[in-house]
């Protein structure tokens, strides 16, 4: 049995230890905010945080998450009460079709939380593993910078 913490709750899993983390999150824990775009670690739509660091959950076998903390988009705000980062995306046009958005948010969340520099260059570098086909990225970068500035106020 594999034990892990998902969005603050303790979970256990009895199936195949090499099940992909994305499949366990979606199928066993009902967290369909985790999206699959390519299944080979290129697009980043399935990004979740593993002990705070962004990973492609399509490349992580569940056994590697044993004893560790997983965070998904469901751990951020709710539609009624968006987090600062989510509100930044809403105001600046950071989401269009929305399929890359949960992964993009998790990478951005880790970046902002790490207290790293949040200017155009550093945000673009941080998000470079998350593909978006709709926005051309500028509004996503703006969203993250806006949220990061808002946090310091």
């Amino acid at each position: 049995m594999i034990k892990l913490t998902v969005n603050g709750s303790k979970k256990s899993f009895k199936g195949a230890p090499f099940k992909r983390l994305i499949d366990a999150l979606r199928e066993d824990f009902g967290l369909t905010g985790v999206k699959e775009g390519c299944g080979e670690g290129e697009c980043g739509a399935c990004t979740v945080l593993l002990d705070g660091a962004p990973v492609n959950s399509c490349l992580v076998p569940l056994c590697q998450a044993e004893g560790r903390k997983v965070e998904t988009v469901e751990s951020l705000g709710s539609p009624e009460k968006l987090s600062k980062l989510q509100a930044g995306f809403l105001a600046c046009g950071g989401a269009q079709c929305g399929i890359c958005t949960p992964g993009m948010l998790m990478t951005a969340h880790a970046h902002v939380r790490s207290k790293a520099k949040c200017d155009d260059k550093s945000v673009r570098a941080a998000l470079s593993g998350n593909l978006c086909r709709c926005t051309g990225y500028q509004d996503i970068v703006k969203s993250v910078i806006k949220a990061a500035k808002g946090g310091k106020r």
Partner: protein
Amino acid sequence: MSVGKNEPRRDGPAKLTGRALYLDDVNIPGCWHGVTVRSAVPHGRIKSIAYDPAFPWDECVVVTAKDIPGKNLVTLIEADQPLLADGLVRHREEAIVLIAHADRATAYEAAKRVKIEYEPLPPVLDMEKSEKVFKSYLIERGDLAAGFAAADVVVEGEYRTPSQEQAYIENNAIAAYEEDGVLIVTGSLQCPYYVLKAMKAIFNRGEDKIRVIQTVTGGGFGGKEEYPSMLAGHAALLALKAGRPVKIVYDRHEDMAATTKRHPAVVRHRTGLSKDGRLLAQDIEVLMDGGAYATLSAVVLSRGTLHAAGAYECPNVRVRSKVVMTHTPPNGAFRGFGAPQTLFAAELHWEKIADVLQIDSLTLRRRNIFKIGSTTSTGQNLMESVGAQECLEKTVTASKYVAKRKEYDRWNKNPKNRTWKGIGLSVCHHGAGFTGSGEVYLASRAGVALTKEGELIVLAASTEIGQGTNTMFAQVAADALGAPASWFSVETPDTHKVPDSGPTVASRTCMVVGGLVGRATHELKRAFEQEHGRVPRTRDELRKAAAVLCQGAPARRFEVQYEKPPEVTWDDATYRGDAYGVYSYAAIAVDLEIDKLTFEVRLVKVTTAQDIGKAINPVLAEGQIIGGSTQGLGWALLEEPVFKDGVMINNQLTNYVIPTSLDAPPFEVMLVEKPYSRGPFGAKGLGELPMDIPGPAVAAAVKHATGRLIPTLPQTPERISQALQ
């Protein structure tokens, strides 16, 4: 007023919290997984289909062409593409057998246990060797021979553009099931009524027995215009045979290899000009590769043909175009729809002309660009909303184009610098709505419903696929009524709930369908005024007025149908007249730098001005411009599907590379608003316009940097290196 304000995206909160349910997120109890067995040869006859006896086939449902109750056909323009190959295969990704199983991995395993034998036939894989023409067009204006006879110079050029994958991040996905005798098809799609039409023929059912419902859709860009009809047919065949829901969710490799892409094109220009740079004759030839079946090729070619002469006035024009068959997966709709291919040629050709005449391409454009009163190649007089010049001038000024041309010329002369620098320009028009008489044939409908409880619901089949449809509709309706946008919700596109508003394509959702929503809401407004005395001012008053207007019925619908503006005339037989009701315009300047050692291109900045009539929601409009331009930059620099033996071999995001946040440049966007009298609040089409011209601007900048005109996309380091040898 709501129009012109940045109302937050309607679908934003659900998408930002992971609550939005895309097809694969929807819990459909008892749903099986469908997979597809495809052809292994590009052209051949199916000799036999064998099923490995060692596999437990009784756990699966298997479907072939024999199981189709109605026509074995994906209904579109020509009746040529079968839903499942029967006897003959015409491309490597053609579907032959479908399998469903409770477990997805087992379904894929089953697909491997099907052995199909073929009698191979010779394939045609090169469009320039194809003899089968799907469609051809001819546009003629003036006297071409006289134009060339009067010309001081004649400049010829040949330009090539590759295919392009839409690369929406959500792959194609559809589920089907039967409920109370109604076949329900739901999933990721752009055009619910296209799917409905295809399903009627496949299953011999009326519209009351088929219901198509869109789920939240993770991008389309044209890639979910026609293919979902095929996928829906496949899922529904499996579901009906299995007697349970079945979903088919493509993985990335299958989606990239099997579904439609942009048409590759070769465009040749022969242009006659006076020595001061006035266009006197344009003779243009267009060839596109349609792939194995006709699908949308005729209309893609039509749009390409109608845009081939560019946004310039020329008295003598001939455009000859054709789209041919090859034994490759059918090409289809991709943002721009044929126009980016022909505009690449038209715009980059100015750089060649500039070299011959020794007049810079900006001056040449200024001398010939469309103005109010200009006449297009089809003889259309441009009487209103022509922002081409303003877009050009704003872009030139904001990008410091003229100063940078000189500055970079100096930089490039210094051999000590490690880079070459360049700035390139392009301009275009883009017709909004369906080509020619298309909108008349579509006869689209949209409406607004008032429930007796006082809810206001926009009814349209136009899908939200990320572009902001639902937010825009609510804003248009709000201002048409004179009420807050928050009073309006937008119905899910569901063929049992919304009228046929036509497809979500061709930059028509805001201008055409938004216009219908506005008109329908005006009818509601009149009803409020006549039956209640005025438009309600509060929610309470709205509820009271609703009870009066509905007269005991649960709801009252106000629906309108498209009416052709009387001034628009078009002749399909001669291709003369008003090809589109109006055009949007754009200009773009691409500023870049090329590493002298690696030939890698770094985009420094992109400046663009786009005339879209009116930005209903500026944040959403700029999002379309930056996002669409970035797709164009990807096509210009990175993206190239590689085909071998009729199949795409780089069908994964690992080696089909789309721009990342580090590849995308900073953008400066300027909205130009030359209102169109027939558009809602002046709005014109926007969706495709930004995709049209980053390509030629990149190529012009590469030429400025290196001195070499590379007439082919993408401008990869390899191509630049070869050009410099």
